[in-house]
């Protein structure tokens, strides 16, 4: 046994460290490499340090990385450790080695406390200041709306959302594509407008016309002034016996601009979709400081008083009050969970409110699957979709970190872009308009047992959760995940945990294996979304 790992010496070293006499920096020994090898996350390290080239990550960290403040994994913050524990920095010792051998026992921390939510809180910013996606497609040019509205069709729907559904992949965009298909089948002209300047809140009302992106019957047309579009709509509205307004998202639009279009169209019915909670707060997924589900409390509450979305909420809701007061909306929620939450929190006037699910899961016939959970056949656990905070990606990371050494599980990430984390197998998958079943097919192909749908806010629908069901997987979710938890109850397909700590325990103590076995015993029931 080498000196460095000899237990009595460690005890002495730990005591001495308290007296500012540190253990002698070890030579770059095999032992140092062994400790680093055990703790360094090679995939993470390579992704975070693209300058590594062909350098072995362990060698790099031992020789250079820690001195340069590079983090070896997601849980050890080299720079913070050295800055916080000046005695370690002064001793010139590899801080990861120090933490593992002595620091942990001395009560030192591997990174600043506060958990992942602290970083989210500190990075939170008001909706108006948040960066948004790309602006316009290349070559987008002004068009004359009049010519585009002269096509055949005795009915027209004016569909409004925050981006052009033809160019962006996502839940709302998929739904608008479905709306277009229904319009076509019904011989209805489908006119879609989205802002030219993307925003995560209303556009400021500067009194002037706004430029919009226009798509007609599923074809991108170009750019129009909302005033010109309003004039063209008003001049032709008598041609259309039925006129509808479908408001999918307010973001990027101004209330006066929307009122102009509505006044020109004089719709027989106006639908307001609750794809998210933007009609309750600019923080559209109701995450206080982007970190904690807030339950949409009154705007004058202390919670709104300290939240980044609080200062503007009163004026924002007043603007929405003008919109909802002028246009009688029929509110459509994609789930009962979303509608109940909204009805409990809104003060906006509306005509009717009902549920219309974006898709329904129809399970197929049960198929047998051998129970898993042994080292040679681990339970296959997946996170599906973008690794976003609101979708619970940091919780998944914590779970993998805690359980990656348990051979009863194998963790996957199904996403368009590779995952930079050891212990996770990345599978390329992304549902698109052209291939909407891509995610479900990928999950099914890998025979995923459990999909972690860890959203930290009450999802209004969650395509991912439904894709998981369609793939024959069961779901594991948190209590306050809205329609995800409801879907688990409705289909008796998975487990709901009260919070993150309960989730970690659920996997650590093997109940997740029991769940996967119960799933297998009952028979896998992949199905389809209709």
């Amino acid at each position, binding site marked *: 046994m080498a000196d460095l790992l000899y237990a009595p010496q460690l005890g002495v070293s730990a005591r001495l460290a308290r007296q500012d006499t540190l253990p002698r920096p070890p030579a770059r020994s095999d032992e140092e490499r062994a400790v680093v090898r055990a703790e360094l996350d090679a995939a993470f390290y390579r992704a975070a340090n693209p300058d590594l080239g062909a350098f072995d990550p362990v060698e790099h960290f031992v020789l250079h990385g820690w001195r340069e403040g590079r983090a070896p994994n997601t849980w050890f913050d080299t720079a913070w450790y050295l800055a916080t524990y000046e005695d370690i920095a002064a001793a010139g010792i590899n801080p990861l080695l120090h933490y593992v051998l002595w620091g942990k026992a001395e009560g030192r921390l591997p990174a600043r*406390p506060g958990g992942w939510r602290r970083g989210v*809180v500190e990075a939170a910013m008001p909706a108006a200041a948040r960066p948004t996606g790309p602006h316009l497609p290349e070559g987008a040019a002004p068009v004359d709306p009049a010519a585009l509205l002269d096509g055949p069709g005795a009915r027209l729907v004016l569909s409004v959302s925050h981006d052009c559904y033809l160019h962006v992949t996502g839940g709302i965009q998929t739904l608008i594509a479905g709306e277009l298909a229904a319009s076509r089948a019904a011989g209805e002209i489908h006119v879609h407008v989205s802002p030219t300047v993307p925003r995560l809140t209303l556009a400021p009302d500067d009194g002037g016309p706004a430029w919009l992106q226009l798509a007609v019957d599923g074809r991108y047309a170009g750019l129009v002034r909302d005033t010109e579009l309003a004039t063209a709509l008003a001049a032709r509205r008598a041609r259309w016996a039925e006129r509808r307004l479908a408001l999918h998202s307010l973001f990027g639009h101004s209330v006066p601009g929307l009122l102009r279009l509505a006044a020109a169209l004089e719709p027989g019915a106006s639908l307001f979709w609750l794809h998210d909670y933007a009609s309750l707060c600019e923080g559209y997924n109701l995450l206080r*400081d982007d970190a*904690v589900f807030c*339950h949409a*409390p*009154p705007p004058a509450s*202390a*919670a709104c008083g300290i939240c980044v979305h609080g200062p503007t909420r009163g004026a924002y809701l007043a603007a929405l009050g003008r919109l909802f007061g002028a246009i009688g909306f029929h509110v459509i929620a994609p789930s009962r969970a979303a509608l109940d939450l909204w009805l409990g929190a809104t003060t906006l006037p509306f005509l009717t409110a009902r549920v219309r699910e974006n898709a329904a899961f129809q399970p197929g016939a049960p198929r047998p699957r051998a129970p898993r959970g042994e080292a040679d056949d681990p339970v296959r656990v997946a996170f599906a979709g973008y690794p976003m905070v609101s979708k619970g990606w940091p919780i998944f990371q914590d779970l993998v970190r805690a359980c990656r050494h348990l051979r009863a599980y194998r963790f996957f990430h199904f996403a368009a872009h590779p995952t930079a984390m050891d212990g996770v197998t990345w599978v390329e998958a992304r549902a698109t308009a052209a291939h909407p079943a891509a995610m479900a097919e990928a999950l099914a192909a890998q025979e995923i047992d459990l999909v972690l749908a860890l959203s930290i806010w009450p999802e209004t629908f969650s395509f991912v959760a439904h894709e998981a069901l369609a793939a024959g997987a069961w779901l594991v979710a948190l209590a306050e995940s809205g329609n995800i938890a409801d879907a688990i109850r409705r289909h008796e397909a998975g487990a709901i945990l009260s919070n993150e700590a309960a989730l970690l325990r659920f996997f650590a103590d093997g109940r997740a294996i029991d769940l996967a076995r119960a799933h297998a015993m009952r028979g896998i029931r992949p199905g389809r979304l209709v």
Partner: protein
Amino acid sequence: MRTACFTSFALSYLPRARVMALSLARAHPDWERWALLVDRAPPGHEADFADFHHVVPVESLSIPRRRHWLFKHDLIEACTAAKGRMLEHLLELGVERVVYLDPDIVVFAPLASVLAEMARASLVLTPHQTAPATSPQAAIDNERGSMTTGIFNLGFLAVRNDAQGRAFAAWWAARLHEACYDDRPAGLFTDQKYVDLAPALFGGVSILRDPGCNVASWNLDHRPLEFTQEGVLTAAGAPVSFFHFTKVGGAGDAMIERYAGENPVPFELLAWYRRALAAAAVPALDGLPWAYGHFTDFTPIPHAARLAWRAHPELWGRFDDPFAAGPGSFAAWLMEPR
């Protein structure tokens, strides 16, 4: 009932005082808001104090040999020492209830439990801790801290204008006039340590143990913070009336960090407070030296000079203004070889 709330601060704490005043105005719009300015504001900055109904410069308070007395104190000592005289002043004006709040306090909800106590008590105090420490580390950080610097946090004080309230005010103001110093070996800690005696010396003292009052890093270990679904901030389940952002931006950050653990709420409060301070900043006044921190030639006053001034009453007759510089001044006397 006429109620006045005052705070005491130097210009460096003006943004904090403004945030406090705004939060108080929301919770108790009918209370008078008084600022005791232990500093000198340059002319033309009246608007920066508009969140207060009244601004009382320390030099307008009736304090015997005021400049001699001020010279004995560093910034924190002076801001706390003047609180006693200010309390007396407001009681003399006939204010029925006087509440003191530190400038780094934020009011999150009406002080309902304080008002309820004041209906029957003459003096309301909030202890630093209201439950045993939850860990040995917390006992060292918090309980031992209180045993050194005072059981009650004097960031808050409420006094009713009755015989017992006035008797307390007279006693406290006298002690603060005599020795309001951070001299822990002598058993002194500014205005705070004296008040350990108050429950013994006076009747009508209420020790308010409401966990929603004076929540701070020193009691976070037993007062976990949460927001309810209705958006009410709670500590140990009780609605938070006021939170004390003590030493935020300095040592307080580490203590909040230590006792927040994985709970995001303390970090949310800190992030909000930093934004609020930035919004309340007065750049033109930022970085001005404290008016009583230097001699008239702007040489900083060393702490040793204050200690010498305190310790040698015979000097007080020799120097009319200890802040003066130049020949014949106390500053010059200090530099003389002995």
